[in-house]
């Protein structure tokens, strides 16, 4: 009996699963930490002629840890009229959708938690789970501002799911695979009119990239599409009633998802961990790959946050018009062109 158990515990499957779980569990707080420190604290501060946090750690680099500890010490407050179970579950669902996204993200030839054949399809599917959590939070808080925020978020996330998926279709047609690892390999081996080797798909999918980034901005509820949180009108929207640890979960999910979307975009359009003119099966890419990927992710996150700190926000109806009248037709046109070119060449 004991021998059986030890056999199971030390089996390859159990060990690799445990490692993968640990990696995902560690990576999400880490990514939020990087994004929050580099962009929310420092880049924003420099844009606004401030210094940002300077006291906790060198140049305030431990500020977020201090903040997290502060959040953990706070009292967990439920509003009296809140639907307690739904209220408690909502941030977990939002964070879960972020966790699930990380499962398919490749960072090297062999570095991926699970290389699903339907990778990008899976990623798009689990990313929309967060809409459910946001709506639950908005409804269960028993707060009018939260309700408005939750409903706005639901409308917005559904409207922007479409251009997001449609923008991806162009890449999928070109790569002939849904697997994210496959898409990276397709880019690493791709030649355009016999020139170059390992050109990223952004060369031909520029429109798709633009649509994906705009839609991702809306999915992440970042300015100019941040009406669900809109702190000057809805005072935080769906997470207005959350304090302490539960708020921290929302916070982590926000930045964790931003990181995940930036990495999906870098995989789809910028070649992920691969480098041009480099054999994608080389073993050393397992070490260099994550760094390459991180550079691309930080670049894309910088664009996301740059826009966030600069632009005012649109109104809800203007946002919907923008999605249905501009982004979706453009994405459909992009698919048609990609299909025609794919067949023609």
């Amino acid at each position: 009996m004991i021998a059986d158990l030890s056999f199971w515990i030390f089996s390859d499957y159990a060990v690799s699963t445990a490692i993968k779980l640990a990696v995902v569990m560690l990576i999400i707080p880490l990514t939020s930490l990087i994004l929050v420190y580099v962009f929310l604290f420092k880049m924003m501060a420099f844009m606004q002629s401030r210094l940002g946090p300077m006291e906790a750690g060198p140049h305030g680099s431990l500020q977020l840890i201090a903040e997290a500890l502060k959040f953990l010490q706070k009292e967990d407050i439920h509003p009296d009229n809140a639907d307690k179970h739904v209220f408690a579950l909502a941030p977990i669902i939002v964070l879960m959708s972020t966790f699930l996204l990380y499962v398919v993200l490749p960072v090297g030839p062999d570095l991926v938690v699970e290389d699903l054949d339907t990778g990008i399809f899976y990623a798009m599917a689990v990313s929309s789970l967060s809409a459910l959590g946001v709506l639950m939070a908005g409804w269960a808080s028993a707060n009018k501002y939260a309700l408005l925020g939750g409903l706005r978020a639901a409308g917005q996330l559904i409207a922007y799911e479409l251009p997001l998926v449609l923008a991806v279709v162009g890449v999928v047609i070109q790569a002939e695979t849904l697997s994210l690892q496959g898409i990276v390999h397709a880019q690493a081996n791709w030649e355009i009119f016999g020139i170059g080797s390992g050109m990223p798909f952004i060369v031909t999918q520029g429109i798709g990239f633009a649509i994906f980034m705009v839609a991702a901005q809306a999915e992440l509820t970042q300015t100019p599409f941040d009406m669900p949180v809109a702190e000057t009108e809805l005072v935080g929207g769906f997470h207005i009633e959350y304090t302490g640890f539960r708020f921290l979960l929302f916070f982590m999910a926000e930045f964790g998802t931003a990181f995940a979307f930036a990495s999906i975009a870098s995989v789809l359009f910028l070649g992920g961990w691969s480098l041009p003119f480099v054999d994608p099966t080389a073993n050393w890419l397992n070490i260099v790959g994550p760094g390459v990927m991180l550079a691309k992710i930080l670049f894309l996150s910088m664009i996301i946050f740059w826009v966030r700190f600069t632009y005012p926000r649109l109104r809800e109806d203007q946002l919907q018009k923008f999605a249905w009248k501009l982004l979706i037709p453009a994405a459909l046109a992009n698919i048609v062109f990609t299909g025609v070119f794919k067949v023609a060449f």
Partner: protein
Amino acid sequence: MTATSDQQRHAYVASQAAEARVNVELDTGDMILNIGPQHPATHGTLRIATQLDGELVVKADPIPGYMHRGYEKLTEVRTYRQITTLVNRIDWVGNFANEVPFVLAAERLMEVEAPPRAQWIRTILFEMSRIANISLFLGDMGVQLGALTPVFFAFRDRERVLNQIEAVTGGRFHPNFDRIGGLKDDLPKGWIAETKDCMETMRNFCDEVEDLLLGNPVFQARCRGIGVIPTDVALGYGLSGANLRASGVDWDLRRDVDSPLPYDQIDWKVWTHTDGDSFARFWVRLQETREATLIVDKLLDGLPSGPIMAKVPRIIKVPAGEAYISTENPLGEMGYYIVSKGDVGPFRVKIRTPSFNNIAIVSWVLRGVFVPDVITILGSLYFVLGDIDR
């Protein structure tokens, strides 16, 4: 066949009517949402009780009074010199401007006139407090619409203006510098050159705001055509200041009313806009800030020399009488109606503050807009809570 189709048609009409009735019964009613008293868009503690149908505002009532401090009553137990300390706190971002109409009204009652240099310095500080006030609005409008960055630029550059005001008066928020018959002190050494430099900074700030907000398509989409106030409505509700000028009324007390302040001795322009929407109000204020920096420059160039204090008795007793003086303050027309019975303090003071009249229009202009537009309109009307509840 026709009978059947007739029957079908009747059945159809009946079903439609029934459905219409059901829809009437299913009317979900309106949601009452209190925007404020604690809300970031109300600049303090203004409460706006809105009735919402979805996101549409059906009805909105401004309910001020959460910060009432009773200044009109307090002035009755103060001497004239003490009152300037109080009135600093009315419009707390354009502080010095609050003292000017009060002192002018008292001077008229006493029939003293401050020497020219004092009037010019008064006007310079008056315009600088206008810049300090409106530059905050220019940045804050961005925050109301979700753009975080402009307000930090506003605070950064406004700091210089406040430093200049502090260099003269010794106070950043509560200068208490204006005296009946003149000013407390003359300008410190080197102040004129520094102020000119500071005005250059403010003009750069205005350009920056123009780049960041005015030309931004999202900003325009959020402001153009939102909260339109036609000329007759603006006049009917007694709007004043930039809100009135943005509705196409060319009315500025600095130019249109005879006053001892030397506005008639320099060359400057009153900006108006005909649209009457939030964008127009923002645009007019932006131009006014720029114009104010130019006014300060011109006043500094032509600053006359001489004393800064007229001859006034040590104990000020204002002769019996009544006087009303209003000036074009950063937020609009601000006036003091002083009734004196010949005592060391006034018998009664009525303070007319611009924000109180400007927010009266809220219930008219907020009807039928969306919740995000409420914030745009409140932001563009620009009130200071201390100015509503004085």
